[in-house]
């Protein structure tokens, strides 16, 4: 996508700043973390120029600077103004339903004084050297980019002001930007952004240290929730283009059969009948990748046809013999028992605070419980798919990719091309949830196009393919033991986690790595003197990937259900007991917590985003207050509570359930309290947490992909069900803790999911006295006796 019709803005920054270091090719500015800090004045003193206005110096470091290709803070890369005043802003993160394609440009537009109705958004292709990191995952788009968006918007505003001042021959102090125009303060002259565009964009971009941000009181869009989704009209009229909607002249449609067992291979196949189906053009074997396959294709046999139906019919007629390989023994029932056995033994110690063994021995009472979660598949409404053209030594691909630059790199590697000869265009994503961070489907499309001599090919996974060959959410056993003293105080906490690791998708690995351990295991915030966390080894038998909120799901489920069990055993109110466990408001010190190795803090600096138990307590209080915690409930109804910090955001949910005679669980209401720092787009934040409640309810009652003989037993929505409108959380009330801009914004895409299942499970206990220790919940067990 080119900005052809716009004033060309692709020039390097004219001002040399100590803070910026040009890349080798000079086309982008990449700010290293150290120089960024210096530029922000954190390394020295600074003075505020305008009362109320923020110097860029009042910003803070984030993990954005240390991501691959870091942050690019160059308005000439992200903003273009055409002579008619249209402001074009590049969205470099992928839109999968969070609203980020609207929200980041909205921040920039507000800061530059643009009128939203005159803003046009274009989507960046996968090009991190130009745009900086594009991995749209980890709930980090806003927290990593809000500052760069503001800096770029402010820089453009200042350039427009300077252009106007120069045109009128007055000092810059005598002009100011209003909405989409610059005016002389005495009111004599005014000029629209379009008129000023050329002159403004020819000016040097101010150095970061000289950029003045708007005062918060002048925000028009930031923090307001008044900007609708940019793609709203396209979505509701059916014109929005997702990956599956790409249509190219002469394009062919492909589907494939992949090994039913991870690591399996095609032994032989017979394509005769498939080729006889009218419309089938070719049957092509896709080479597989030995385990661990990372994001490379699993291999299999593809049918390429003039339309999807013909391809599907051809696929039906394929006869394939497989060589399954060692994972053919994978059996979910057996595996669960194995995980349990391992969890009963000492594992690798990953956190050791105090002396748990001694404390457990001295305890008046020891309570233990084990929690289980099976694999899940993301089941994005839009199945994995991609379209590619590979010819004349070049590859162009269109994909619903969360990490388009990673896809581009993998395509280059697989095809043996120079990365400069590979283009990855990003469409809208019909859901991502982590599945579309992996580009295996794009490589399949490219391979087929290459074999077909450069014909455009769209590879579409069917829903069956999606469920049977996913990058599954891990399955886990979490075993927790607590020692209680004679005063009813918890003095010891031992948590053992056994789960195949995401690492195993990239290299042989049986232990979880820091990212997984940091998601609700070693970062446990409880004020208990003796805490030990252990991780037992287990080998994977499927591709393990990340699924919205990742290991936080089983961890929050186990820890938050166990706390409710303890409260009940001790005859305490759950909320009071939970607050006691969290302890007084304080910032935790990871060293004092006995965490072995470094705490994974979602890739962000701990000084900026510490674990703050005051904020954790506050969301518990807020959710309980809004839900009316403690109110009398009718028979077979109950309230359940859970709290969890993930992606640097604090979330508590109270679920209200009614358990019907036949065991059906209805959820009249969920109150979710969210502290995500400064809420940039509260309306979309609410949407994320409403959606998370539904996804949480789905995984609570429906989601299990189980394996027999290495093969997934589920395949489509008839046996891998979703929450539907016949039984959904009727009213999800999202209560957002207000903060000023200076409380750094944190994640919102994922952290709503983890507290939902334990809140529901705890509510079911309150309603029925039945303890839930396993997901998904078997509602047959909840039938009235």
């Amino acid at each position, binding site marked *: 996508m080119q900005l052809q019709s716009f004033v060309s803005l692709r020039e390097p920054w004219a001002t040399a700043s100590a803070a910026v270091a040009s890349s080798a090719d000079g086309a982008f500015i990449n700010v290293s973390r150290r120089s960024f800090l210096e530029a922000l004045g954190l390394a020295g003193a600074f003075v505020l120029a305008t009362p109320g206005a923020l110097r860029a110096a009042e910003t803070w470091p984030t993990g954005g600077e240390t991501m691959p290709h870091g942050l690019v803070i160059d308005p000439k890369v992200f903003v273009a103004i055409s002579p008619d005043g249209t402001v074009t802003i590049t969205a470099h993160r992928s839109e999968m339903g969070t609203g980020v394609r609207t929200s980041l440009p909205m921040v920039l537009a507000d800061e530059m004084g643009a009128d939203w109705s005159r803003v046009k958004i274009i989507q960046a292709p996968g090009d991190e050297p130009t745009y900086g990191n594009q991995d749209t995952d980890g709930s980090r788009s806003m927290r990593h980019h809000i500052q760069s968006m503001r800096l770029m918007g402010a820089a453009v505003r200042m350039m427009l002001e300077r252009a106007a001042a120069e045109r009128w021959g007055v000092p810059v102090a005598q002009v100011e930007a209003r909405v989409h125009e610059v005016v002389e303060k005495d009111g004599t002259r005014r000029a629209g952004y379009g008129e000023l565009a050329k002159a403004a964009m020819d000016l040097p971009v101010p150095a970061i240290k000289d950029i003045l941000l708007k005062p918060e009181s002048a925000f028009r869009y930031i923090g307001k929730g008044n900007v609708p989704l940019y793609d709203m009209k396209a979505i509701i*009229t059916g014109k929005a283009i997702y990956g599956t909607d790409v249509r190219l002249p002469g394009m062919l449609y492909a589907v494939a059969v992949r090994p039913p067992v991870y690591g399996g291979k095609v032994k032989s196949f017979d394509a005769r009948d498939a080729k006889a189906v009218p419309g089938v053009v070719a049957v092509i074997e896709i080479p597989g990748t030995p385990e661990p396959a990372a994001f490379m294709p699993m291999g299999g046999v593809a049918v390429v046809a003039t339309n999807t139906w013909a391809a599907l019919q051809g696929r039906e007629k394929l006869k394939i013999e497989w060589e399954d390989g060692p994972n053919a023994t994978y059996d979910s029932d057996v595996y669960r028992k194995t995980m349990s056995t391992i969890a009963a033994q000492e594992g690798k110690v990953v956190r050791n605070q105090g002396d748990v063994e001694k404390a457990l021995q001295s305890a008046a009472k020891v309570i233990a419980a084990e929690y289980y979660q099976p694999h899940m598949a993301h089941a994005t409404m839009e199945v994995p798919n991609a379209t590619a053209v590979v010819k004349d030594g070049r590859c162009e691909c269109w994909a619903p990719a969360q990490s388009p630059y990673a896809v581009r790199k993998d395509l280059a590697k697989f095809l043996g091309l120079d990365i400069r000869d590979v283009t990855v265009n990003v469409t809208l994503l019909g*859901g991502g949830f982590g599945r579309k961070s992996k580009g295996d489907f794009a490589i399949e499309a490219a391979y087929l196009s290459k074999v077909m001599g450069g014909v455009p090919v769209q590879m579409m996974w069917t829903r069956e393919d999606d469920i049977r060959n996913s990058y599954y959410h891990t399955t886990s056993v979490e075993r927790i033991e607590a020692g209680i003293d004679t005063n009813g105080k918890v003095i010891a906490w031992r948590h053992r986690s056994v789960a195949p690791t995401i690492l195993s998708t990239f290299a042989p690995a049986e232990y979880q790595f820091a990212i997984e351990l940091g998601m609700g295991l070693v970062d446990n915030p409880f004020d208990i003197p003796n805490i030990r966390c252990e991780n037992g080894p287990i080998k994977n038998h499927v591709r393990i990937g990340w699924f919205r909120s990742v290991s936080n799901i089983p961890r929050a489920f186990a820890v938050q259900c166990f706390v409710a069990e303890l409260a009940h055993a001790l005859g305490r109110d759950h909320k009071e007991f939970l607050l006691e466990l969290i302890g007084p408001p304080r910032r935790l010190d990871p060293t004092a917590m006995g965490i072995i190795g470094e705490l994974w803090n979602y890739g962000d600096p701990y000084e900026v985003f510490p674990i703050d138990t005051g904020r954790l307590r506050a969301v518990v209080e807020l959710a309980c207050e809004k839900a009316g915690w403690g109110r009398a409930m009718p028979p077979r109804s109950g309230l359940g509570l859970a709290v969890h910090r993930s992606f640097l955001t604090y979330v508590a949910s109270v679920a209200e359930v009614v358990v019907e005679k036949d065991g059906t669980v209805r959820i009249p209401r969920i109150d979710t309290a969210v502290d995500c720092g400064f809420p940039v787009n509260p309306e979309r934040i609410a949407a994320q947490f409403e959606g998370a409640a539904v996804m949480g309810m789905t995984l609570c009652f429906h989601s299990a992909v189980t394996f027999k003989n290495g093969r997934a037993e589920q395949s489509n929505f008839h046996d891998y069900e979703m929450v539907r409108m016949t039984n959904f959380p009727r009213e999800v009330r999202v209560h957002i803790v207000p903060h000023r801009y200076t409380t750094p914004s944190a994640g919102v895409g994922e952290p709503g999911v983890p507290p939902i299942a334990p809140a529901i499970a705890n509510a079911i206990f309150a309603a029925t006295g039945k303890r839930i220790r396993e997901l998904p919940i078997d509602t047959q067990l909840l039938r009235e006796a």
Partner: protein
Amino acid sequence: MAISFNVNGRPVSLEAPPEMPVLWALRDLLNLTGTKYGCGIGACGACTIHLDGKAVLACVVRLEEVAGRAVTTIEGLDPDGNHPVQRAWAQLGVPQCGYCQPGQIMRAAALLAEKKNPTDAEIDQAMAGNICRCGCYQRIHAAIRLAATGV
């Protein structure tokens, strides 16, 4: 033999196998990609269209079944997005990723065409076949109510 029918007010004639689901005919042969694939087995509603004004699932309706009849897709509901259901969707900010929404909107529009002011239970029942993985049900429900009653 060509199969003739009407799509969004225009006559079309397709040389295609009579058993081809209408979904693929619309998407691959007519370039009407607003109708989505989600499951192919009638279990998700992403492919909902109107056949002679009634909501049907395009992935399980065969081309021969629509011969001589009128099909409306999301592209034909109101291209400017001014159908009351579309307006309610925009007003309440229903979509997240948006992928399921053409199907949801077509289903809701068919419901309201049949029943001016459905009860909550009738809305639930009518929408039960439409999955939204992003979990927009609360707003979908509210938007149908808004489209029906203006509040």
